[in-house]
């Protein structure tokens, strides 16, 4: 079902995860297995009534016949430090920035040279948003269901919902802007291709010091290595207000079998007690 037949691992933890999720899925959907159907038979997400899209966890949606996903991404992953910046977490090198984005980065850099921070996000309890929540120090968890992939990012206890039930992005007038955006995914071979739009452009950064705006469009090609122990995300991002052309970068993550995510909530009043906060001009 969810942990599909292409899984080549016999790890007990994976079996346990499968059993737990199957139990959850069974309870929600009232069924215990899915039948394989040809892709042509997959209908887009059903319109249930009054123009509302069937919820990803609706019984009728979960039980709809679908081909099994080619890969099960379920697992806990730690960001793998690679790249050219000191920590490997940013999307370097930058593409050619627009004058607007370059001016912002220059201002931020100038403040830092004087020991201050300018319009920081996380340090003042603003959300990182996509894509930064995918590239921080703390681990991420993928929970793959037939209709969605839930991504838990430990940093500030973030949740992403990637709908794989055939739905499209809402029309503009129905797209409520968020820091993680609206994500839909489909499979191309062994790769989950995730398309995300609908971002808030206020204190939202794509990479350290480079803003992402409402025109930000993020495409992630997510795949697992053959041994299923390395998760790879190829990011392709556009935002004509802030850079020219496509911003491409690939990040990798190591599967962690002895790790879980813990609560990680930023509380403004607590942050304000920290020495760093006193030098954060964005508070």
């Amino acid at each position: 079902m969810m942990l599909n037949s292409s899984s080549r691992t016999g790890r007990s933890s994976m079996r346990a995860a499968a059993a737990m999720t199957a139990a959850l899925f069974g309870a929600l959907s009232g069924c215990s297995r899915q039948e394989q159907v040809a892709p042509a038979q997959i209908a887009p997400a059903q319109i249930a009534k009054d123009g509302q899209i069937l919820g990803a966890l609706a019984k009728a949606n979960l039980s709809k016949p679908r081909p099994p996903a080619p890969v099960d991404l379920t697992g806990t992953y730690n960001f793998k430090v690679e790249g050219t910046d000191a920590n490997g977490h940013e999307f370097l090198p930058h593409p050619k920035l627009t004058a607007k984005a370059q001016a912002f980065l220059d201002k931020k850099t100038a403040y830092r040279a004087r020991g201050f921070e300018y319009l920081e996000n996380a340090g003042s309890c603003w959300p990182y948003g996509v894509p930064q929540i995918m590239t921080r120090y703390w681990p991420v968890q993928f929970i793959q269901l037939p209709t969605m992939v839930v991504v838990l990012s430990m940093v500030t206890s973030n949740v992403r919902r990637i709908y794989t039930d055939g739905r499209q992005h809402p029309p503009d007038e129905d797209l409520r802007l968020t820091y993680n955006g609206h994500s839909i995914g489909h499979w191309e071979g062994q790769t989950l291709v995730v398309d995300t739009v609908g971002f808030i452009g206020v204190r939202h950064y794509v990479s350290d010091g480079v803003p992402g705006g409402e025109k930000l469009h993020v495409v992630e090609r997510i795949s697992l290595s053959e041994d299923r122990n390395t998760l790879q995300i190829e990011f392709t991002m556009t935002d004509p207000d802030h850079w020219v052309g496509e911003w491409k970068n690939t990040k990798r993550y190591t599967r962690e079998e002895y790790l879980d995510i813990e609560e990680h909530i930023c509380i403004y009043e607590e942050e304000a007690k920290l020495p760093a906060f006193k030098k954060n001009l964005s508070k």
Partner: protein
Amino acid sequence: MENKHRMRVESGYRRRTRLFTGLTATVLLNCGAAAWAHHSFAMFDLQKPVEVKGTVKEFRFVNPHSWLILSVTGKAGKAVDFPIETNGAFYLAKRQGWKRDSLKAGDVIVARIHPMRDGAPGGDLIKVTLSNGRELIARAVPAVAPPVEKK
């Protein structure tokens, strides 16, 4: 890198003012945000760690930052609160073996820190030395790569 600039403050803390060299400024520019650290590091002097001796007044072992307040005897012999932040409990526990009671109110410790660049009381914790000599590491790697290693 740290030993070269080692400056021990046996009691209390030392306010320092100085000019920054071009090299220091460059390093800080490039490394203003330490991604694992949840917020910018621009306000800490990452190049010249100092040691501060004091008594633990409060220790919070939480995410995204753990932090402690040291009661430090200042120049005038008066106790001053010296706030120190460090990695979240998740990191300290998983990577450095800290426990919730690794530090307790009343413990007399020496904290090695990256001080505030402007000399204000406070800093980012590198390690703690307890009165029995045991060390608790808070940061396994420097907050920034040494300049010679930068690409």
